[in-house]
């Protein structure tokens, strides 16, 4: 009987207009978001590849020049093969699942120049050319569809699973067959929402295959699907709960829309605002001011600072005196700027850690926050990845400064052998195991809370059958 009801419900639901409209909306929105995300990722990848190729080409030429000078096949001018001119590219590659989520990836720098000419503020170059109007609105990616749109569509197709029959007076007749109200309600909910989710999973799988970019895409997609389905399950149980407790369709729909508004919009907005107010980051302008002060100080006291550096490095012998002083002035200024701004960067890290800690707890207030975070983590579109790239690039700059500093200040060249010990920048990604570990507790919470809601809804539905 249950199978027959399920079959009948499927036929009945699929034949109705709203189901087809909802399914079409899912196909179009996820399909568009994936296509647009793929274009964005390709453009980003192409820009990064040309940047990297250009820098590596220049670096190879610089090394050739150095080797020629060492071999005596080239007459060296003071500025030739100067260690200040070493410049490594540092890039943050788009993730293998980057077409699914854009998140913070369109706001932060994705490339840097690791060069002694640069300081932690200037190493990311001038990257703020995007239109602020469009940046402020955020992109329409698959995450938006999953987090905002799918729950609304689920509500639209399910809010009247019992109330519709009840209003027409058909519920008692349906229950005269050997079927329980709980089975009827769950079957209808599963059929209606199942259709939506099967469509969503199919479209996402198509995107997975069509936009394939290699790497660990399939493994990440597995986790992505897990998060999506856990989020969908949560909403299914919320809908079941409202259906069980609220007798009329209109009140069920109103309550569900209100819950959606609170969970998907109000709580994330409030949590963000409060965490940012509780853990303000240091002023970027204060950061700028410190760098300016460092530059003035260097300009005024270059001789004293050079002498101090040479005293700290007694092994150095001064090289070519013809080399203009602005080389070492720029280097020392950048060192001072780095030291001066270190407390500010540490304060940044502390504020970010505070916010992250707040969000780790506050995410349990709303499944939308959990799902949004986990989906961004899975697609590497999270804020933490951007900050890790910046921190790793700053570390690489510091290592390069340590390696070339003595040569720059003493106006000497590096040897080709010394240069060859320097390593190229490679971004250290978070491993899939780390990702799974990060997702484990929030996912467990989503599943547990869904189970709890399902049990409560089930009991209530059972009780309704007794009084109907």
């Amino acid at each position, binding site marked *: 009987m249950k199978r027959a009801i399920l079959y009948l419900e499927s036929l009945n639901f699929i034949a109705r207009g709203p189901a087809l409209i909802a399914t079409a909306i899912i196909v179009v929105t996820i399909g568009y978001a994936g296509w647009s995300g793929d274009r964005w990722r390709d453009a980003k990848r192409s820009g990064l590849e040309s940047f990297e190729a250009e820098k590596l080409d220049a670096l190879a030429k610089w090394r050739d020049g150095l080797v020629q000078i060492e071999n005596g096949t080239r007459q060296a001018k003071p500025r030739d093969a100067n260690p200040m001119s070493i410049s490594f590219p540092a890039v943050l590659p788009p993730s293998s699942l980057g077409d699914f989520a854009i998140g913070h990836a369109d706001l932060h720098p994705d490339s840097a120049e690791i060069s002694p000419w640069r300081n932690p503020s200037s190493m990311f170059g001038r990257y703020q050319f995007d239109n*602020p109007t469009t940046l402020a609105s955020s992109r329409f990616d698959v995450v938006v569809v999953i987090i*905002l749109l799918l729950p609304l569509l689920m509500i639209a197709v399910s809010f009247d699973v019992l109330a519709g029959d009840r209003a027409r007076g058909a519920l008692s007749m349906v229950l005269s067959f050997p079927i329980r109200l709980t089975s009827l309600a769950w079957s209808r909910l599963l059929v209606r929402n199942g259709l939506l989710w099967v469509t969503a999973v199919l479209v996402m799988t198509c995107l997975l295959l069509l936009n394939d970019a290699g790497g660990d895409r399939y493994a990440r997609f597995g986790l992505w699907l897990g998060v999506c389905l856990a989020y969908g399950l949560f909403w299914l149980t919320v809908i079941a709960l409202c259906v069980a407790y609220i007798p009329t369709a*209109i009140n069920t729909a109103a309550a569900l829309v209100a819950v959606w508004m609170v969970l998907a919009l109000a709580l994330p907005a409030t949590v963000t*605002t409060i965490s*940012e107010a509780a853990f303000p980051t240091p002023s970027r302008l204060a950061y700028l*001011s410190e760098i300016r002060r460092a530059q003035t100080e260097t300009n005024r006291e270059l001789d004293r600072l050079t002498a101090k550096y040479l005293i700290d490095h007694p092994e150095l012998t001064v090289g070519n005196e013809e080399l203009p002083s602005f080389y070492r002035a720029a280097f020392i200024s950048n060192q001072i700027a780095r030291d001066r701004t270190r407390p500010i960067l540490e304060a940044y890290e502390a504020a970010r850690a505070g916010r992250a800690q707040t969000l780790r707890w506050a995410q349990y207030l709303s499944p939308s926050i959990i799902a949004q975070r986990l989906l961004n983590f899975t697609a590497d579109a999270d804020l933490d990845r951007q900050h890790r790239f910046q921190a790793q690039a700053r570390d690489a700059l510091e290592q390069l400064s340590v390696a070339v500093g003595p040569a720059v200040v003493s106006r000497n060249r590096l040897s080709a052998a010394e240069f060859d010990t320097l390593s190229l920048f490679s971004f250290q990604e978070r491993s899939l195991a780390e990702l799974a570990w990060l997702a484990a507790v929030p996912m467990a919470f989503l599943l547990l809370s869904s189970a709890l809601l399902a049990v409560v809804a089930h009991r209530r539905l059972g009780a309704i059958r007794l009084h109907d």
Partner: protein
Amino acid sequence: MKSALIRKDSLVLRREFLLKALLAAVIALALISVMTGLQRERVFLHERAEAERIDKEVWMGQGERNPHSAAHFSRYAFRPPSPLALLDPGTSDFAGLAIWMEAHYQDPAVFRRAEDGGELSRYVMLSPAFLLLTAAPLLIFLMMHASVAGEREDGTLRQLLAAGVRRGHFFVGKFRAGWDITMLVYTPIFLLMAGCSLAASPAELSADTVFRLLAMYVAYAAYLSISVAVAIGVSALCRTRQAAFLALAGVWAVMTVLVPRFATDVGTTLTPQPDARQTERDLRAAAMVLSRDKERQQQIKDDVLARYGVEDEADLPINYSAYRLQVSEELSIPEFERVYGALEDRYRAQEGVLRWFSVLSPTIATASLSRGMAATDRVHQRAFTVSAELHRRDMIKLLNEDYMHNAGDAGSKYTADEALWARFDDFDHPIPGLVSIGGRYIADAALLLMWLCIAMLAGYGCVRRAVATEAKAA
């Protein structure tokens, strides 16, 4: 009869418990957004004033230096804070707030506050404007979904028709009841938020600010009126409360959440964001337009030697290096204008797509007007960057001219001191008056007005159709 209809509907609407609960939630969110916004603005104003002070201190305290070296070090221009930023932060967090006015190079504005935002900041941000644009229409839709559908479902519409209620009066009664309550709630909330915004600002209240506030109030009032009319129209199209509610929930999601994001995405897909690395290369090329052109350098040298009637640059009464630096600056100006002009065209093309999508959602035009009135949109950002560039040109010219005329035999070893640094005015860019840039918002205002007219006409048309259907059935 019309006033009786308004009174009755107002009473029914005020009795809705769910509505009261949601209204209380929205007011609580408004208070949270205002309080956190106040704290944020206060901190920002302090930081900005401190950065300006330090910038001046560093400039004045740079000691003796060659003027061209000082031009490289230069100063920063800081974007002026808007007194209405708390009400609508607009795009200000996504645009740079400082510009380095260095020699040779027209820098973009840097330091975007959005980069300091938290994990969820790209997803949703709480602000008074966000509440008015997003939450307020939902409240109106919840409040009004049964306005006509409920009367049809309960059979009271036929009774009203039998009592001789005219179609026009019926629509006006429904509209006025919803509109009165909306304005009753909206006006004090807006005044509260505007008051807090003005209180947080150190600037004195000017006529321009009052005019902007008034325009913003009117824009939101129009937007909320559109929401009321849409709610009545959709309600009239549906036979049951349930259907009306669902339809309006869909309209709300599409109008306020999906279409604005979708429009942005289509805009940036059709006209992609600029490649930052390529733009930087273009700017670098613009800055080096003279240094890469040996022929032109020679021509400039020949010209200046001929003008002063000498044969060697050492015999020139001016410092030739400084002269060349200034010529280089002037030759770079059109090149910079070309690069930034191309960026501006790209931005406008993206915003053009957004404007087209305004036809699908009044939220886009209202948001654009709101940002404009709050002086937190790209138009105001552009005015700031243009003003900073003009200041940069004047500043670099003054430094180069000092070097040119006073270097004498010292040549590149010439240094100037605090007396020269003190001759420079601080960068001051007042927010442009609405009178001067108001034209930029005519299209958005016209779109909003068009939406209002169409929503009213369509609402009335739908009610008329519903009344006719009921009359026929009766």
